[in-house]
């Protein structure tokens, strides 16, 4: 049955994707929620919470405030906090109850701006979709609101990394690995959306020659930058070895030809199944194909926009079980192990957006090498 899960995890939700995407940018992100979202996000989905003083809060909406439509309470609470804490911007995202009451995020943002003079984003989320949707919307709205339209291009080739949050890229050094990859490919990193970056760097994203979309979270913003700023994009994330070389070549070519593209040459077939976020999983599938000659199929539960022919979008446990039919090898977060086909080899590929902090210590940095996976095939 759709919507049921006997045992596997729930991916991080849209509202947490918003928080994760905007975390390092000096803003104040408010989840319009009764209670619980704050501790869930900061415990399981935000590994930077202990180390960076980013402002992420909940509104603490109550039953009567929801029934009476007391949006002014939220606006005044945000205004009070903003006046005291001086965020660079405010972002409001939501959860199921505001979705039910028809909360108007754009209007709320306008009211906050009017009240405080601080720019505000109203990111419509419901808490009922995957983190990819929330992060995508947050990045795109950030671009629309803040990115300069007239930034002069850098003299040297430069790239924006788009779609990088700890939900997909571990704080154990993956962001740095991707930056090193870009530099080896001949591109200085102009802006990183959004690990190890600042608000001002992102505002100047228009100075880059090309965008590297490293997760599905970055696609909407990349498309916006393509349309508004003329920056072409490549979809892919480095996996050490021949795939990284191919990705570097495509990055150079795209910067020159301005033709967008997904760095993939194989179909989603074969008896190796990879479950996870689309771009990382496709990159891993391609890298395995290049290294071993074996094709892999990708199963994504979080996004259906970026898939190769043969790859599958499977949002529910039963869909994943069906998509795994016939797989002899399953590469996935350990949370999926109980539903792997009997007899299939299960290779751990921990993913923070799935299992939170549970297996963080064994998360593989593909840009540094995937021998841990290849050696088990």
């Amino acid at each position: 049955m759709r919507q049921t899960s006997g045992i596997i995890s729930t991916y991080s939700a849209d509202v947490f994707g918003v928080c994760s995407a905007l975390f390092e940018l000096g803003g104040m992100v408010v989840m319009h929620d009764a209670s619980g979202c704050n501790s869930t996000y900061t415990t399981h989905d935000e590994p930077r919470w202990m180390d960076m003083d980013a402002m992420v809060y909940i509104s603490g909406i109550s039953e009567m405030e929801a029934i009476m439509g007391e949006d002014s309470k939220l606006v005044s609470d945000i205004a009070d906090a903003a006046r005291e804490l001086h965020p660079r911007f405010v972002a409001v995202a939501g959860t199921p109850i505001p979705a039910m009451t028809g909360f108007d995020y754009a209007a709320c943002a306008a009211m906050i701006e009017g009240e405080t003079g601080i720019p505000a984003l109203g990111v419509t989320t419901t808490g009922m979709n995957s983190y990819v949707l929330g992060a995508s919307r947050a990045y795109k709205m950030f671009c629309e609101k803040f990115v300069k339209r007239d930034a002069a291009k850098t003299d040297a080739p430069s790239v924006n990394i788009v779609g990088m949050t700890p939900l997909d890229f571990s704080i154990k050094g993956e962001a740095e690995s991707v930056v090193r990859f870009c530099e080896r490919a001949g591109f200085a990193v102009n802006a990183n959306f959004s690990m190890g970056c600042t608000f001002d760097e992102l505002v100047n994203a228009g100075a880059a020659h090309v965008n590297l979309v490293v997760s599905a979270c970055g696609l909407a913003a990349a498309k916006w930058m393509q349309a508004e700023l003329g920056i072409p994009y490549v979809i892919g994330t480095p996996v050490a070895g021949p795939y990284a070389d191919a990705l570097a070549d495509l990055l150079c070519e795209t910067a020159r030809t301005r033709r967008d593209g997904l760095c993939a040459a194989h179909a989603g077939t074969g008896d190796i199944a990879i479950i996870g976020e689309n771009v990382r999983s496709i990159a891993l599938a391609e890298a395995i194909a290049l290294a071993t000659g074996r094709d892999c199929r990708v199963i994504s539960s979080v996004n259906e926009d970026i898939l190769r022919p043969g790859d599958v979008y499977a949002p529910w446990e039963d869909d994943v079980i069906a998509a795994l039919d016939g797989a002899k090898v399953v590469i996935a977060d350990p949370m999926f192990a109980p539903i792997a086909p009997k007899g299939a080899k299960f290779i751990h590929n921990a993913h923070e957006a799935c299992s939170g902090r549970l297996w963080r210590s064994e998360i593989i940095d593909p840009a540094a090498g995937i021998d841990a996976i290849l050696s088990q095939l």
Partner: protein
Amino acid sequence: MLKRVNESPRTNVHVHLKDAAFPAPFASGLEYAAPARGTWNIAHVGMLMPEAHEIFVCAAGCLRGVVLTAAEMGASHRFSTVEVKENNLLDGDMEDLIIEGVSDVIRKLPYTPRAVLVYTSCVHHFTGCDLDVCYRELRARFPHIDFTDCYMNPIMRKSGLTPDQLMRRQLYSLIRPREKDPKCVAILGSDFELNEDSELAKMIRGAGYRLLEIQRCKTYEDYQQLGEASIYITTYPSAIPGGEALAQRIGGTHIHIPYTLDYDEIDANLRKLADLLGCDMPDTKPMRDACDAALAKLREVITEDVTVDYTYCPRVLGAARLLHEAGLHVTRVYADSFTGFERGDYDALRAANADITIHPTAHAAMRFAVSEMPCLAVGQKAAYFCGTDHFVNEVEGGGHWGYEAILSLCSLMLDAHENAKPMRELVAIKGMGCSCV
């Protein structure tokens, strides 16, 4: 220290005790969550029921925290979900989703649970979901499984019973009436098993009573034996509605014997219990003397500032008062509000002109209130905000009660004074001491 990602001022919102309103010293507003996770949530508490399976019916964002709570406990095999989507809100098929979703989960389970705890959420309340219909149908479909209604509806935390109170009530809702054993007592609603060295446990056992607790139950049959108790005791404030409800439903007497660190209140509670059990009031002077000696030792050894937070025990002001009156330099109390039970401690500390400041934990500005303050912290949040590795790492009273709780506190404080602990790692562990897998 936290890496700064903005130019916000370093604020430290607090109010001096003499100026603190009771029971809510701080205005409500945006809420911050400090990364101290030792207290239990409703998923932890539900797992106390043996041979039960939890099924949460909620939106993805609400499920995320409890799914990973179960996973971190190693209890994913006792936990399933039914995810609410936008279309369910629009289509008005919430009852179908619950009935068919829960049924689907149960049919797929590799075992048949004795009980299923179905947790519904805020959206069910707001859509007027007919839960009676859902449970009636589920009980008809699975007559060998006991179902109970649990709630993850934090939007109701200011309306009637809180989700925490509801959980501690529903945990006992499947106990069937049984023949009462006049010499049987059950403790209800605490996270932790009552310490056998506590005066409470000693008095019950000394009077020849059986002592039952859900924490000691290995099987569903053990759990049902709680119905044999003739006296139900709650020690934790949020357990009171559950104690009252159970006694009213299946008979027996409910009595609240609160956790307290006040000598006279401990004695008054013991006297009340002795009357009920029909036994003699024990001579508590030896225990008082032992506590006096332990506190005197604390005063001698601990010369640094002491800070206390509400997660340590249900009487944060009581802990502050005990230590202040013992001569320790208590400087800070971390609490967002107080319970009515703390009024006496509040008044006593104010009457004594205690130089104590009250600090919130959830106020937005507390994001920037982390300091590196040389002190001994009692509780995880106090330790986090003060940035100290010298802290008492215990939550929710830790199963202690009475003079034994005071002796335990003294012992833990001495240990914390002498031995640093990895605060950052320890406070990150969710549901401290939850061994109910």
